[in-house]
């Protein structure tokens, strides 16, 4: 029993509710939400250190013992993701002060962001499969509102498609839970894992596994199911795009990782092979998009898809090293995607366009933005010693060790093309002859640069401090690779 687990969920919830009372008072909206998120970072940090010292932390809601009640479980993987989420959301909120516009700020922008974080942190923390669905829905409802907030034509059009896709995937989620429940008769994730290992008929488990892959794949944007993502993520303004790009797909990826390491590790010959093929195809599709487009938003959006593929490849190899690589990479990617989206948000607010053909020579007037972008894109591609390197190295190496040469080669080559796609932005957008833009004077570049610069600094620190962080990461990977640790921690008390 440890009440610390609930705090990263509870703090944004209370913040959001309090903010509803002061909708018209923008300074209160800004500073209360910033204070709330700062508090959440502290709570999440304490949670990580607790998990590091005492192992997996659990909490039974309403004091109902597992497996009867809803249990919140914080292992190292989820605690780290909660911490990363808190940090990113704090900086995105700071960035929003001067970029989201007063219209949106008066129309429940900050409360909805808080509820989004409730959903994301809840999904990372919960140890109950149906509760996961509920937190997914909390997150999705907030994301619908954030997507449509502002009500421009393109937002309305894209959010209709986004909502439709997500309603279908939610229905599939309920169906998948129904099948799972009929087989195991429980909803507690640790208990499900225990019961599944007693089921002799592997085929039904495989069917459920594939169904879950479809459900989470739709949210996490893996290969055939990513079609909705480029359009929907294109519509909202930069801070919302950063939240979506950094957090939402990662919740899907987290859920795949959790279910495929905790539940479906029996028939890896089929399920993990399938996951691997999907992951490789995801990488290919994402890279093609990232290289082909000349729209800076599109390029970064397709890089989300590449990253999803890389992380899931690590999961599908399913050795302790590859899982460590995936954990490394998912944290790196959340951080750096948020930074990149915020940076291109600055570029768009300076130039008023996201078309790369119309942007030149920004480096002359905005060297700070340019060099931050350069470091961030190098980190994204995994140039040593920046943050993407260690994760990719672990994933590729364990891919070769497991004799998945093709997949590992694709991951390697994708890094090169990812580097090309973001350097394209740097070379064409930042270099060249400077030119004047219409809204240039109005862009509060100094304030906006603060958040992505700090996030990029984190990426640099994360890369240089790999040695120091490694014990924490390997602890997360150890839990993922050995489901018994998780099961014992939840059910022993």
């Amino acid at each position, binding site marked *: 029993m440890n009440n610390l687990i609930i705090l990263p969920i509870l703090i944004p919830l209370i913040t959001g509710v309090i903010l509803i009372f002061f909708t018209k008072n923008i300074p209160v909206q800004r500073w209360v939400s910033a204070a709330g998120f700062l508090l959440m970072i502290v709570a999440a940090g304490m949670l990580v250190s607790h998990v590091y010292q005492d192992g997996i932390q659990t909490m039974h809601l309403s004091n109902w013992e597992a497996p009867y009640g809803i249990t919140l479980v914080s292992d190292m993987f989820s605690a780290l993701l909660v911490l990363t989420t808190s940090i990113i959301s704090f900086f995105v909120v700071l960035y929003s002060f001067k970029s989201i516009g007063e219209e949106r700020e008066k129309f429940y922008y900050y409360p909805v962001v808080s509820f989004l974080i409730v959903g994301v942190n809840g999904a990372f923390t919960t140890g109950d499969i*149906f509760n996961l*669905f*509920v937190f997914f*829905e909390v997150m*999705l*409802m907030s994301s*619908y*509102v954030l997507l*449509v907030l502002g*009500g*421009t*034509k*393109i937002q*309305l*059009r*894209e*959010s*209709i*498609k986004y*909502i*439709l896709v997500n*309603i*279908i995937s*939610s*229905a*599939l989620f*309920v*169906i998948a*839970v*129904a*099948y799972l*429940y*009929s087989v195991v008769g429980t*909803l507690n994730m640790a208990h499900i894992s225990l019961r599944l290992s007693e089921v002799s008929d592997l085929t039904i488990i495989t069917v459920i596994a594939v169904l879950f892959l479809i459900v989470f794949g739709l949210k996490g944007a893996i290969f055939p199911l990513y079609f909705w993502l*480029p*359009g929907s993520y*294109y*519509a909202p303004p930069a801070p919302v795009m950063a939240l979506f790009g950094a957090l939402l797909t990662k919740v899907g990826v987290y859920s795949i990782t959790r279910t495929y390491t905790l539940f479906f590790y029996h028939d890896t010959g089929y399920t993990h092979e399938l996951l691997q093929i999907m992951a490789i195809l995801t990488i290919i599709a994402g890279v093609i998009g990232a290289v082909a487009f000349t*729209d800076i938003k599109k390029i970064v959006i397709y890089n989300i898809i590449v990253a999803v593929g890389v992380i899931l490849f690590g999961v599908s190899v399913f050795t302790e090293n590859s899982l460590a690589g995936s954990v490394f990479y998912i944290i790196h990617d959340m951080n750096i995607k948020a930074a990149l989206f915020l940076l291109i948000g600055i570029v768009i607010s300076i130039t008023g366009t*996201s*078309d790369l053909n119309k942007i030149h020579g920004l480096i002359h007037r905005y060297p700070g933005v340019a060099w931050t972008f350069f470091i961030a894109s190098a980190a994204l591609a995994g140039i040593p010693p920046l943050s993407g390197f260690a994760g990719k190295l672990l994933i590729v190496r364990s891919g070769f060790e497991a004799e998945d040469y093709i997949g590992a080669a694709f991951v390697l080559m994708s890094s090169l093309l990812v580097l090309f796609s973001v350097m394209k932005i740097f070379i064409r957008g930042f270099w060249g002859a400077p030119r004047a833009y219409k809204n240039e004077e109005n862009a509060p570049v100094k304030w906006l640069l603060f958040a992505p610069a700090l996030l990029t600094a984190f990426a640099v620190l994360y890369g240089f401090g790999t040695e120091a962080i490694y014990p924490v990461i390997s602890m997360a990977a150890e839990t993922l690779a050995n489901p018994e640790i998780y099961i014992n921690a939840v059910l022993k008390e």
Partner: protein
Amino acid sequence: MEILMAFLVGILFMTATYLMLSKSLLRIIIGTGLLSHGAHLLLLTMGGLKRGAAPLLGENAPAYADPLPQALILTAIVISFGVTAFFLVLAYRAYQELGTDNMDRLRGKEGHE
């Protein structure tokens, strides 16, 4: 009974798919409603259809009903109620703003207004 429910769920899914493939936004919304109904019924069926007393300790009944699927469905119904309501409001706003409820005319490149 399970067979009957399976058919019912199948028919609901079928209708939902048909409606969601149509062009009118309102039909699509009705389709999503039917889809979630089907999913809820499926959840109820999968939880086991049996009669029994309420699962309270003092009842001493020969058989108890499983309360979990019902609790799950209630939650899922509330969620789908909220989502459908939101979708309706959005569709109405989109109709006002874009002047159409035809999905064909909502197509277009993302960059275009």
